[in-house]
């Protein structure tokens, strides 16, 4: 089904709501002097967007806006994930002391605009749209990273992010031009038809084009070798933004990457296995990238003293695990990837939230600031929650992280990628060491300041409780998330 511009709007309410909210926040910011409630406006709009995504029409999918966007179960999964990420980011921003010091109007309107861009990334069905939405996300992210104007680290991070991002997206659009030259179209389905129509595709040219495109996508998901920006940016940005980049931006990158590499340039076989373009070795290339990404992320995280940097390297490694599902060329693998990304959202957001709460308390993000946290008055709950999130990131059972890892490894074993599974599993053993370092500091060491009590606002406690309970509950009873993920793996690819 191909919907015209007006008819497309019925599937576009969440995006419209976010656009409206962005503008309303700018207006309110201009007109009033009390800006303390802008965060609540943003919170209501992201919840509204999430709700609209949930109740959206689901009738098998459609092309929107003259085939610029596509509406299907796959996009709903990622839109929901991104709306959830935005919700958490806004919620955290309201409870963050860093954010309270910066310009509220700009901050929240750009945050919502960034979420809008991510939603568009997940729906793009055209290279032009893909590029525009990706750039939209990048530009808003640069501003959000550098929004702490008096903080030099934030400024430096934004600059680094900008330079890396500029190079990556420039490379990507160059690759897209190669594809356009060979396929004669920017439309994903037209590219698919053109490339599969002839048996003599220029293998090398297609491969080069894909490598160039991967530089842009790899930069968004922070995979090796385009990961270098991540530690600096994660460290410099305000923590809610770090969370949003780590969770939302990464998910959007995975969504676009999957939509381009799977329905656009591969064919689905009857048994749920995907057939890539003949002789074009992108799966092998990505396999290597995946292995290096998780290994390098984990090894680099071992030495970090700053929690945000450690979690940055950890999130590089986590992207590597999710990529494991991506490279298997099967629907099982992709479902595993979706499950993993959802699990990653819950546990990583939780971990960053605790980092933010501790930063609010102590003004420090170093692991040494966590010493003896569990033994300080009122600190036990905080310490236990962070432990839950970190164990989940390691993949210890009875947490959602274990379910994610279980799915990814199960898919790898099923598709007979033994070496990959073994490397993945050894990586998770290595990761235990650094994930336990803050735990060790909190529980096994004595507090530096044992007198003053730890006080946490109920606002932050609420979100932390929800995320911690979700980590445990979905770890023990995963069917809801599993059926959500497996029902979401339907691409709308009818080319009529």
């Amino acid at each position: 089904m191909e919907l015209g511009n007006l008819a497309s709007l019925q599937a576009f309410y969440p995006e419209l709501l976010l656009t409206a909210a962005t503008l309303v926040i700018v207006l309110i910011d201009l007109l009033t002097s009390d800006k303390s409630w802008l965060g609540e406006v943003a919170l209501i709009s992201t919840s509204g967007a999430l709700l609209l995504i949930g109740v959206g029409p689901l009738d098998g999918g459609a092309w929107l806006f003259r085939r610029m966007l596509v509406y299907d179960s796959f996009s709903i999964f990622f839109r929901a994930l991104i709306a959830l990420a935005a919700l958490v980011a806004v919620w955290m921003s309201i409870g963050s002391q860093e954010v309270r010091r910066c310009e509220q109007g700009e901050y929240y309107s750009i945050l919502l605009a960034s979420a809008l861009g991510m939603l568009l990334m997940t729906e793009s069905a055209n290279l032009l749209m893909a590029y525009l939405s990706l750039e939209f996300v990048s530009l808003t992210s640069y501003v959000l990273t550098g929004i702490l104007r008096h903080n030099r680290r934030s400024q430096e991070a934004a600059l680094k992010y900008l330079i890396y991002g500029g190079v990556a997206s420039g490379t990507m659009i160059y690759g897209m031009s190669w594809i356009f030259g060979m396929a004669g179209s920017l439309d994903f389905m037209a590219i698919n038809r053109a490339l599969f129509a002839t048996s003599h595709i220029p293998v090398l040219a297609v491969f080069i084009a894909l490598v160039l495109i991967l530089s842009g996508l790899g930069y968004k998901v922070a995979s090796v070798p385009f990961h270098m920006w991540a530690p600096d940016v994660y460290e410099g940005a305000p923590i809610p933004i770090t969370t949003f980049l780590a969770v939302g931006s990464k998910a959007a990158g995975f969504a676009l990457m999957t939509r381009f590499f799977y329905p656009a340039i591969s064919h689905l076989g009857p048994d749920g296995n995907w057939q890539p373009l003949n002789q074009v070795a992108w799966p092998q290339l990505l396999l290597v990238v995946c292995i290096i990404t998780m290994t390098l992320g984990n090894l680099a995280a071992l030495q970090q003293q700053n929690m945000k940097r450690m979690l940055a390297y950890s999130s590089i490694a986590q992207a590597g695990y999710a990529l494991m599902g991506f490279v298997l060329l099967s629907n099982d693998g992709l479902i595993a990837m979706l499950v993993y990304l959802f699990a990653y959202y819950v546990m990583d957001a939780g971990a960053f939230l605790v980092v933010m709460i501790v930063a609010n308390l102590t003004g420090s993000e170093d692991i040494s600031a966590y010493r003896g946290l569990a033994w300080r008055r009122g600190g036990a709950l905080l310490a236990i929650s962070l432990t839950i999130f970190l164990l989940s990131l390691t993949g210890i059972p009875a947490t959602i992280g274990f379910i994610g890892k279980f799915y990814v490894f199960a898919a790898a074993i099923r598709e007979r990628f033994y070496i990959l599974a073994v490397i993945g599993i050894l990586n998770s053993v290595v990761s235990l060491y650094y994930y336990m370092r803050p735990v060790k500091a909190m529980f096994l060491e004595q507090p530096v300041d044992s007198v003053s009590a730890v006080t946490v606002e109920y606002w932050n406690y609420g979100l932390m409780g929800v995320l911690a309970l979700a980590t445990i509950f979905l770890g023990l009873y995963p069917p809801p998330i599993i059926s959500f993920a497996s029902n979401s793996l339907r691409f709308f690819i009818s080319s009529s």
Partner: protein
Amino acid sequence: MNHPLTLITFIPLIGMALILVCPPAFKAGYKWIAAATTLPQLIIAGWLVHNFSTNTAGIQFVERYPWIRAYHIFYFMGVDGISISMVLLTAIICFISVFASFSIEHGEKGYYALLMLLDTGMMGVFVALDFFLFYIFWEVMLLPMYFLIGIWGGPRREYAAIKFFLYTLLGSVLILLVMLGLYYYGVTPTFDMTQLAAQSSSYSMTFQRICWVALFIGFAIKIPAFPFHTWLPDAHVEAPTAISVILAGVLLKMGTYGILRVNYAILPAASHELAWFFLGVIGTVNIVYGAMVAMAQTDYKKLVAYSSISHMGYVMLGMASFTAAGINGAVLQMFNHGTITAMLFILVGVIYDRAHHREINGFGGLAQQMPLYTGITGLAFFAALGLPGLSAFISEVLVLIGAWQRHPVMTVFGAGTAILTAAYLLWCFQRIYLGRLDEKYASLPDLSLREGFTLVPLAVIVIVLGWYPHAILGLLQTSLNHLNRVVLAATPAQAVALH
């Protein structure tokens, strides 16, 4: 009782919840909640043993409900002769260890809560029959252990705790991979251990061998078998007394239990082929090496830790024999080692609480000052070195009789080591308890009532099983002999033919 296995596994979690909500004003109540939690557990274990039918090799008290349908995962519990003895052992050791924990003086709330979680994990491992469920319990146990060693342990506790965690996690991820492999490459995808055992001949021999070795490494780290044993002395030396008791009393048994439950039952052909080296030879190395290193120790607790390694070697050797005597002796040895080593660690704890050091050469003549304590230590030492009339004698003799029929050379080494064992234990006894009493220790009080309460029941078990081993052997026999026949019948040729 409708769901005895669910109850016995999850009662400690209720205790944990109660301890967590109990306000700090009732600080003294934590340990009593823990005791009140492990007592019903012990009663249920007794009830299970009483109602357990020894005539069948099948599983009993089955509970089976769907859990994660997408992967055919069930909440599946049940016990057979092998697991029922371990359930009983776990219940006894957990009950005792609560009382052995009364000397913990800071962070009681966390301590007892974690102890309860550990209890659930251990019990769950022995009653789970779905591989996925088994794995969850197996891993859940690691975490409380990490904290119990890491927070309440000795000076090098941080190192010991993370070493324990990393070693065992490495082992368990190997188990996870094999579990997934067994799931996908069988005739029907399943995690049900009984069904996996039934379809074992459908796996190709090469696949079986790879899985067997990976599983072996996973379980061997827990036993701990040479050369994966290096975490054990560290963990034991740093752990508080009660945790050492649990570690030696129950956790080590999980390794050999896992080999019986998974390697033997699910991969019998590979077991038949590989056990002589991995269990026989490595087991013998464990026996000899453990005893020799124990002889060189000057730290009382380290000596007991290495003697544990040595004694677990007998279990492995017995399992490698594939004779009724050997394999029954092996599981009986698991039970006996659990009770005897628990006693030894409590005894080490008693003297450490008083003298605040464990240097063997730093004592002497304690027998004059603490006769009761010395008496019970003597009993435990003689049990450990296999004196006839005490429990370990029966199990070690059974192991050696069984092993002799198949691996005579290894048996000679195993039997010969009994002399080394006697040597290091008696030498240690002499240095600590005999001779002239050091002035410093002239005022040490003898065993307290609480300490006596933890030691006497174990001593009674040790003596009773020395004369009436059938109390445990009767439970084991039917299941173990059946398992042994399955393994003996499975030959590589048959696996290939059916494939």
